[in-house]
């Protein structure tokens, strides 16, 4: 315990170690947050979901915070749903069975550019008589524009940009431009009118229990805190979920490899003879095997599941150079007097290996384990970049892979590559910084250097 505390104090002397620890702590908090707010099944559903989940998002839109850094404010995607109670809903019973249902949507528009699409998603409840709606658009300067009037089905989508009549009424301007354009601006180069807009949907239902709800979606040029990809998916989901996946893969692979290597090396040294010989030969054979090719083959031929890849990674990483250096250290420890004493009083082989041999080299092991993590985190990303990522789980590497295959760098969608890359880099550097500092603490030979 005292040794532990003094180690901790020692860490305090290395700023890079503290920085590394802080970052790792933040990453762990993000992981826990991701796991709690988006359960596994939900994450998989969101990541694999198509238009029905992500219809409200524009394709490949940069994140909303781009506006903070730009003088020209781009419109951010906005959804207002009456079913979720975000719009004002007024129900006025009329004569006979008819009822007027008025929905009012109010939003503030303070952008310098026009949105990309305006869509209304209607849901209605009726038995035989279709409800009827009229959409009115009220601009900040008080003009009231007629958008459309039509009867609706149980589910109906109205896209303003595809309404030819509306376009004609707006003087040949596309709906998403015409509805926002300042009437005093040049029609050839329209400028949006800033202020509070209002949409009124005046609905009429012709049955006692009938109801109308509508969701208004303004697809802007920016969306969410992380932007969206080519399938309209919010990148926040894979960015959040990539954190626990990357940490788990790195930690399990590094710990698994390190501990197994150490135990196998200890067994080899303790029993000697053919056990030792066998381990040495396996190590040499493993040196001949092409590591990455085998991983790619396993990914292509057998299974792309992250756990299979993890298992093979550990298996192939055990018998490498590490086992030789552990062996060299164990050889020295084996000859020390306290091991001799243990043997003299009749300690069992297992007791000697697990209680006397292995604990001695844990100080050497820990820095190696931590500096080993980034390599595995990047390995998972590398495989994903080659298209061999886990088929169901969202990971950072898969975002980069998607971005690459869709030419994000050619098209200037830098956020798509930079967000996961930055997270990968931060994670890698945090563990590397901590590992290097620990190495200096635990291996005093390096301390002065």
């Amino acid at each position, binding site marked *: 315990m005292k040794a532990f505390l003094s180690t901790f104090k020692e860490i305090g002397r290395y700023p*890079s170690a503290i920085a590394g620890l802080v970052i790792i702590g933040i990453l762990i908090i993000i992981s826990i947050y991701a796991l709690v707010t988006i359960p596994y099944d939900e994450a998989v559903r969101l990541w694999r979901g198509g238009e029905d989940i992500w219809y409200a998002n524009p394709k490949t839109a940069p994140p909303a915070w781009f506006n903070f850094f730009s003088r020209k404010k781009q419109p951010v995607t906005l959804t207002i749903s009456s079913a979720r109670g975000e719009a004002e809903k007024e129900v006025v019973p009329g004569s006979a069975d008819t009822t007027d249902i008025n929905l009012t949507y109010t939003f503030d528009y303070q952008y310098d550019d026009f949105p990309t699409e305006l869509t209304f998603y209607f849901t209605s409840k009726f038995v035989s008589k279709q409800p009827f709606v009229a959409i009115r658009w009220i601009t900040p300067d008080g003009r009231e524009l007629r958008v459309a009037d039509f009867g609706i089905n149980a589910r109906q989508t109205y896209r303003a940009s595809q309404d030819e009549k509306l376009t004609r009424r707006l003087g040949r301007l596309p709906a998403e431009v015409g509805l926002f354009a300042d009437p005093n601006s040049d029609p050839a180069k329209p400028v949006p009118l800033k202020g509070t807009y209002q949409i009124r949907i005046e609905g009429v239902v012709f049955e006692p229990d009938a109801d109308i709800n509508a969701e208004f979606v303004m697809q802007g040029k920016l969306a969410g805190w992380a932007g969206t990809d080519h399938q309209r998916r919010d990148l926040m989901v894979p960015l959040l979920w990539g954190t626990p996946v990357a940490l788990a893969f790195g930690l399990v692979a590094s710990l698994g490899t390190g501990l197994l290597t150490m135990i196998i090396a200890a067994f080899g040294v303790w029993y000697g003879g053919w056990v030792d010989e066998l381990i*040495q*030969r396996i190590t*040499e*054979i*493993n*040196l*001949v*095997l*092409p590591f*990455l*090719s*085998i991983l*790619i*083959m*396993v990914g*292509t*031929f*057998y299974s792309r599941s992250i756990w299979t890849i993890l298992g093979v990674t550990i298996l192939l990483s055990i018998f490498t150079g590490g086992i*030789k*250096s552990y062996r*060299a250290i164990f050889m020295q420890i084996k000859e020390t007097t306290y091991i001799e004493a243990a043997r003299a009083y009749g300690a069992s082989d297992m007791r000697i290996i697990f209680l006397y041999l292995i604990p001695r080299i844990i100080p050497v092991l820990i820095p190696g384990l931590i*500096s080993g993590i*980034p*390599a595995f985190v*990047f390995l998972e*990303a*590398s495989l994903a*970049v*080659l298209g061999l990522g886990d088929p169901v789980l969202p990971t950072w590497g898969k975002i*980069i892979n998607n971005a*690459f295959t869709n030419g994000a*760098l*050619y098209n*200037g969608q*830098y956020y798509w*590559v*930079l967000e996961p*890359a930055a997270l*990968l*880099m931060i994670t*890698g*550097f945090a*563990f*590397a*910084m901590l590992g*290097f500092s620990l190495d200096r603490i635990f291996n005093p*030979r*390096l301390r002065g*250097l």
Partner: protein
Amino acid sequence: MSAETQALSPGQPIKVKRKAFSNTLSRVAKYTALRLVTLFVTVVIGIYLTILIANMGGYVDEILRGEIRERISVGVSNNPAFRDYTPEERSKYIDERVALEEERLGLNRPFAVRSFAFLRNALTLNLGRAINMTSDSGSKQVTLIILERLPSTLLLFGIANLALFFSSVFIALSLSRHYGSFWDKVILVLTPTSAAPPWFYGIFLILIFAALLKILPFGGMVDAPPPDNWFDYALSVLRHMILPSLALILASIFLSIYNWRTFFLIYSSEDYVEMAKAKGLNARDIERRYILRPTLPTIITSFALLLIGLWTGAIITETVFNWPGLGRTLFRAIGLYDTPVIVGLTIIYAYLLAITVFLLDIIYALVDPRVKVGGSGGGGA
């Protein structure tokens, strides 16, 4: 570093020298033979494992059979010449064609038998013909496919890795002279950046130099269409090489410098170096005779391993930069289940590695008088 060292026993009686010499000779011969045999067995087992994995223990055969049958049945049903055949006749014809094709590829024999034939061919470097891949000149010979891609891999990775190796050793040496200086601290701070692989830096370099500044190409090896005269061609290749080499160098230079620097520092704090300093030898002599000399085996080892590492190229770096090298060939071969190409690339790597390890044993004995070949235990890199 892992070579077995033995202290020289000084003051051996002169009369036993001759006997000792012949002893040494037989010991060296015995050791050499034993070493060769173990290395060969290692290669054999390694290659056999690769063959098993590359064939998924025979499952790739099933995939290939399915592909052959599908290709032939589609071909027959689309061919108007077979329209008059009855369904029985047609299926009989398809079966015959499938059997013929399977025989051509050797699929009619059980996998266990064929795996040993593969092994024999691989070991005798009879690499055979690819299943699906062809070289750019249209050949199916695995040797040609490999040879066609080898120059581009050697060019890029050769230049990048040689630059990386020599610059890091020399920078490290000069840092170890002025340890604790400003640049020394800079390198120390930058060391963790080597946690990221080359392709990762590649992305950033592409983003900055190709996408934003538009001064260097996104990837590939030469402009399309390729320039006519050789000078422009070489210039174009050079331009395409800048970013991938930079990525390769950036990804490991700081860690490499740090490791060499620490290594040199450990050796320059040895007692005999202190002694040499006390004797008043000049710094250059101390460096050459007392620091570089004992570290030579390690430098040679890592240089040799670097050279054979060139063989595999770098699958992902080549993919990111669209560089037509061996790494991408291997990746494509895996995607096409093209076992002969996978095994061909692996066996050459295995042979290169085995030969290098063997040569290193001998070179150790030559450059380091402390190493005795065939001493106790089976040492070696």
